Structures are given as C-alpha cells and as structure tokens.
C-alpha cells in the first residue's frame, strides 16, 4: 500500500491545524489587550508595587521626597521594560505570540501557584490534573452510562422505560452546575453528609489512602450533579442514534443471515458507529477540561476552570492567554489524533485519505 499519500495528507492537516492555533492564540492575545485597557491596569499595578517596595525598604528611608519619587520613577520604568512596555503593542503582541506558542507563558501578574511560583506554566500545570481528574471521571461515567442505556433503550424502543427517559430528557436543559447548587443544598447544607466544595479536607489527610478517600468524597457531588444534568439527554441521543443506525440495510441483512443478536449489535450497530461516538467522547472530554468554569466555581474545585475565573476577575492576562494557548494546543492535537484514529477505524475515511 502506498504510504506516502496518507502521510502527506496528515502532514497537510497538521500544518493547517498549526496555523489555526497560531491565529486563534493571536486573536486571544489581541482580545486580552484590546485598546490598551489591560495595559493601564498593569501599569498602575506596577507603579503601586514599585512605590510600595521603595517606601517599605529601610535602605531608602534616608531619602527625601524628590529623591524617592525619582527612584520610584526609575524603578517603574525598569519594571515597565521588564513587562515589555517599551515596545509598541503590535511588537509586543508578536513577541508574546512567539513565546506563548513556544509555551514560554511568562509570569503571572498577580496569581501564584500553591508552591508560590509565579510561572504561568507552573500555575496551570498545577491545576490541570485536578480538572482532568474530576471531569474525565464524570465524562467517562456519563459516556458509558449513556452508551449502554442508549443501546438498551434502542432495543426496547417504545417501551415504558424508553418513554420515561424520553419524557425526562428536557431536564437536561438545565446545566450541571445548576443541579450542583441543589445537591449542595441537600447533601451539604441540610443533610450534612458531604462537603460543600473543595477537593480535599482541610487540613489534608497525610495518609495516602485517607487522602484519596477524601478526594473521592469531594468528587461525589460534582460528578452527581453532571450525571443528573446530562444522563437523560445522552441516553436519549444515543438511543436515537442507534435506532437510526439499526435500520441500516446491512443490519437487516445480518439479522436475516442468522447472525446472533449480540453479535449484530456489536459488529453491525456499534462498530460502524464507533468513529462518530469516539469523536463525540473526545471532544466533550476536551471541552469539559475548560468549559467547567461555573461548576468548578460552584464546587470550589481547584481546577483550571476556577483558575480561569480568578484570573479573569483579577485581570491576570498572562494566565488567561496561557490557558487559551494550552486549550488551543490540546484541541488541535485532539482533532489531529482523531483524524488518525478515524483513518484507522473507518475504511471509508481511510480510502478518502489515500486518494485525496
């Protein structure tokens, strides 16, 4: 088989996606500093910081007011240069784009990591695992629950269970965090059996097992809130999806040939629909890694979402841009991997890749 074609094709896709990331990141940088609005805040903060440092420093205590002012001004200009203000924004934006793309995300303006670092990369990387832990768990449970319920319902189309699930589907128009509020109300405020929020007890248990248990306890409510919100819709959509695919001619042919029902379901319904299902799963997974800002805030979960929220309200542009960059990269990589997976899973796509 000619290997050059698919390699060329994928290389081209990779190039296009890389370009997309560049444009998206630049757009994010530009938006984050549109009209120099953020610049002003940053400058003000820098001035305040410098003057506080000078006035608090006992070494400068002997200086008179004019000297102090001059000193502050000097240090302020230095600080501005450190922050890159000596160049016009357009230059700075490209410098920033370059460093952002090479994951040199710089230092945060205000936020710091738990370990005290101001490096944006450290801050984000500290939070990312928490988010990934919570939402990967949630999405996987949701996915498999939805998948198997969907399969089950598609077999029992029109039955009472099916009707009940269909009837309850509109409940999924309420978002997960909304259910979260009431679960907190019920389980934390009234019943007092689960924590209000956070990721681990304060102070954190030193025992590894106890620690894990504590994290698990804290995960129950957020996970449950998402399950309540999205279980019905995911079961319903999967059911409809499988119903549509089980009326394909080849499914009928397989049944007519006496292929046993479980095999029909596995090879003739599930297998051909795997590519879109996998896409669905990976994209929702990815989206949940950043899209859960409100849920994380509601549950006070120390993840990327709540980091994003805090960075937003404190105007910490480097952190904001850093988050967007990382997300853009993650998404682009996922899309790319998906295309490869598609090409492996689906001979039709594979053929398309070969001949295009």
């Amino acid at each position: 088989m000619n290997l050059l074609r698919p390699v060329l094709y994928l290389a081209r896709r990779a190039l296009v996606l890389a370009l997309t990331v560049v444009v998206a990141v630049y757009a994010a940088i530009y938006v984050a500093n549109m009209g120099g609005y953020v610049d002003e805040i940053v400058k003000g903060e820098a001035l305040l910081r410098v003057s506080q440092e000078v006035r608090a420093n006992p070494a400068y205590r002997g200086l008179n007011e004019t000297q102090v002012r001059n000193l502050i001004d000097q240090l302020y200009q230095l600080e501005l240069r450190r922050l890159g203000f000596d160049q016009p924004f357009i230059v700075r934006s490209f410098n920033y784009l370059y460093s952002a793309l090479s994951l040199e995300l710089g230092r945060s303006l205000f936020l710091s990591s738990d370990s005290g670092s101001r490096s944006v990369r450290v801050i984000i990387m500290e939070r990312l695992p928490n988010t990934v832990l919570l939402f990967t768990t949630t999405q996987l449970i949701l996915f498999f629950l939805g998948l198997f319920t969907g399969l089950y319902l598609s077999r029992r189309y029109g039955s009472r269970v099916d009707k009940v699930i269909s009837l309850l589907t509109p409940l999924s128009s309420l978002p997960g965090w909304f259910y979260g509020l009431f679960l907190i109300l019920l389980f934390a405020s009234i019943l007092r059996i689960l924590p209000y929020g956070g990721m681990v007890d304060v102070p954190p248990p030193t025992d590894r097992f106890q620690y894990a248990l504590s994290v698990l306890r804290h995960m129950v409510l957020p996970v449950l809130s998402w399950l309540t919100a999205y279980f019905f819709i995911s079961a319903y959509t999967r059911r409809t999806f499988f119903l549509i695919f089980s009326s394909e001619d080849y499914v009928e042919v397989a049944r007519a040939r006496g292929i046993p029902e479980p095999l029909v379901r596995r090879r003739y319904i599930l297998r051909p629909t795997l590519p879109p299902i996998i896409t669905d799963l990976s994209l929702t997974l990815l989206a949940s890694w950043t899209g859960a800002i409100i849920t994380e805030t509601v549950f006070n979960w120390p993840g990327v979402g709540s980091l994003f929220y805090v960075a937003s309200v404190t105007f910490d542009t480097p952190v904001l841009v850093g988050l967007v960059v990382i997300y853009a990269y993650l998404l682009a990589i996922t899309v790319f991997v998906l295309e490869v997976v598609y090409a492996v899973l689906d001979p039709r796509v594979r053929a398309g890749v070969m001949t295009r």
Partner: protein
Amino acid sequence: MVNSKVLEVRNLLLHYSTVRGVVKAVDGINFEVSKGETLAIVGESGSGKSSTALAIMRILPRNVAAYGGEVWFKDLDIMKIDEEEFRRKVRVEGISMVFQGAMNSLNPVIRIEDQVAEPLIVNMKFKRDEAVSEAHEALKLVGLDPAIGRRYAHELSGGMKQRVLIAMSLVAKPSIIILDEPTSALDVITQANIMNLLKRLKEELGFTYLFITHDLGLASELADRVAVMYAGKIVEIGSCEDVYIHTKHPYTKMLLDSVPTLREDKHPAFIPGAPPDLVKPPTGCSFHPRCPFIVRGKCDVETPPMLYAGEGHNASCWLLEKESG
C-alpha cells in the same frame, strides 16, 4: 420428478398500522415452491411482493398490525417456532435472502470475505481459515476474484456488490434463496450478467429461488412458475407459459400489454387509473375499478376466489367461473 415442496405458504397475512389506518400489505396469499424450481412473484410497487418476502423471513418493521398464516419450510411450520429456533433452523441454513438496494447492504467496516464467512464461523462452528476459504469459493462461484475478499464495500462497484450479496446468500448452502429485486439498481448489461449467473447456479447446482421483481421480462429470465400480485393478493399463478401465453387474469394481461417490447412490434397500452389505496381497498375484486371486463354487481361486490384455469394454473377472476360454466 418428485415434487418435494421446500416452501409452502398458506393464507399469509401481514398488515401494517400507519397514521392513516391499517395497510393490508399482504392479505392472505398461498403459494408453494418445489425443490430446484423458481417461483417469481411479480407486482407493481405497493402490491405487497416485498412484504411477502419479509413476512417469510420474519423481518418485520415496528408497526406491524397483523401477522399470521402458515409458512411451511419442508415439514416445519416456521410461523410457530420461537425466535431462536427460527434463527437456527431458517435463517442460518434454511432460507437466505438477497435484498434489493445492494448499495447499503454491506457493512462498511468489515472486509468482504469476513462478512461472507461470518455465519459459517458464528453459526456453523467453522474454523476461521476454513470459513474464509469457503467464502472464497462462494466468491468464485458468483464470478468474482477471491482477492476481492480483502476489500471493503465502498471499494466495489454496484455489480460487484450485488454479486457479493449473492455469494453471501449461498455460502451457507440454504435450501431456498429469496431474491428481492436483486438487480433493480443496476444497469441493463450488469443486470443481464447477474441474471446469467443466477441461471447458471440454478442449472448447475440446482438452486431453488423465490424471485421477487416488478419486471415481467426479468421474471421470465428465471422463473419456472409465476405469481402475479395486486393489492396484497395473488391474482394469478401458474407456469411461465400459462401466465405469459395463456393469460387468464385481466390485470396480468394488461400488465403484459403495457410492457414496450424491443423485438416485437406491438404498441404498448397502459392500464388506466391508479393502483388502489391499501388502507381503503375497493370492495370485491380490488382490480375492478380499472378492469375493462368488469361484471357489475359481481366484481365490485364479491372477492373472487382462486379459480381453476388449467393444470397448476389459477387466477382469481370471476370471468373464469363463467368460462368453466
């Protein structure tokens, strides 16, 4: 020749429920197919010919309103057995079916040879390589290069897919093959090729077919006997010669007359009116509103039974009653 019946259908019934009411797609039909013989069921769209096949194979849509009658496969009434027994006794080795619309009848993500071999492995306990070599034999039998087995459905042309479907239907060596419009999506030359293939299989290997088509010409390519369906009922059944030459039912006659012929010079005529609404079929003979020989007070009141029209030749028309006195 010992007339051993492979399939015998008695008073088969299949009604669907729709928003508008109950559609009597198959409304009490009778026929039989003997070993080595081909019966063609001919009818226009909506006459119930495809539903007949689905009813025999027990592939029913969700909106079935009534389903009944007897279907004897050899000496077993397959309407009376449960799903699992039906699968083992009928679907696996008994009756196989070639569906219309070859374009979408193959699983797009499984290699052809695996699809052809699949029932052998899962149902008949073949080893995988044995089954695959059986599949290759079947592909050869339908005139395909066994190397095609490594391909996927989308890499085949329409004619090749149709051949694969035929290979799939015969790999388990069934007693009877139901062909439901096996060539309707194909071009004339490809169609002729497939018909030649089916004929050869019949002559050389003694296959038994139930051949469902809307095309009278195509039916005559393969059929030993022909059953003509109209509005859910068989209106005429008999040997090919009986039906085509000694035609008894006005519908059959008019349908034959409506076929433009290349080799003969006769001007085709059409049947005025439209096929009946199966939700509200006409009273009496369902063809009476379009029939030029209508006997008022009879045809539009009483449904004609199957009447004798010759040895092995029956038609459901009141005119026959008059003839025979």
